[in-house]
């Protein structure tokens, strides 16, 4: 059984790891989670982002949901927003693609051009 004691341990570990820098949000991953996105498989995509960030111990990237981004046929859509507001829109996402976006874009700062909305046929 998952216990609150376990949660307390997580808290302790998080406090030990915490550095002043980690409080700042470096990037934000926004997943379109309206009916269209959910039906197209946005939840496993969001989960893939959360898992990948957890695996790599990245604490300064926030994963959030939003409603319909407006191009329902290209769902699941994910926007990666930099701290300076630069936004990259990825379309027709899958959990595998999410892992690649974390590795290349979030960790190494290289946009995965193959998955962007510009690369998709509209």
């Amino acid at each position, binding site marked *: *059984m998952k216990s609150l004691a376990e*949660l307390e341990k997580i808290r302790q570990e*998080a406090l030990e790891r915490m550095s002043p820098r980690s409080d700042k949000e470096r990037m934000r991953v926004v997943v379109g989670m*309206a*009916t269209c996105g*959910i039906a197209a498989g946005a939840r496993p995509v969001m989960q893939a982002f*959360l898992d990948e960030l957890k695996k790599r111990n990245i604490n300064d990237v926030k994963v959030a949901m939003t409603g*319909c981004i407006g191009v329902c046929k290209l769902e699941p859509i994910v926007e990666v927003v930099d701290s300076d507001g630069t936004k990259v829109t990825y379309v027709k996402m899958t959990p595998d693609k999410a892992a690649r976006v974390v590795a290349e874009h979030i960790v190494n700062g290289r946009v995965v051009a193959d998955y962007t909305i510009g690369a998709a046929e509209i």
Partner: protein
Amino acid sequence: MRDLSLHLMDVVRNSVDAGAGKIEIYIEADIQEDILKITVKDNGRGMEDSTIKKVTDPFYTTRTTRKVGLGIPLFVETCRRSQGDLTIKSELGKGTEITAVMKISSIDRPPIGDIGNTVAGLQASETEIDYVVGFKCGDKDFTYSTEEVRQVLGNEVSLDNPQVIGWIEESITEGLENIFGGVLNEIPCRT
């Protein structure tokens, strides 16, 4: 929608968009009566009676990005297909309560799906919202509450910490399995 957890995600998103600070989700299985009941209750802005009538219409939505709103209509269809129905109670300024009822044994009832994943995702996205998630079957029950987690975490550690989100997901998944048993989180139809 592939399973009930996705419908749940969809209606809870409505609660979030309605500005709710507290969202309660209850899943109850009554095996004798063969009834599965899912309740979502929020303290968002609520709706007028005239609006409640309109939300089951696929061509009604509050959104401006598109002209159709399929969340509620799809959930209603799923309930009716599963020999049940969906009811909405709402009061302006107080909140909304949605109750979905299905027959557990109905061949068209979708599986429950990954509730842990749904709630963890919702919680990671909006850390200021308090969730209560309750499962009940016979004399067994399980409750998750954000408030309880907050008490342990204090102010320094955020709810969207990846390890914390992982704990929330596992804890709810475990609760679901313990209460409803069955394979793949599914409710067994017979006692």
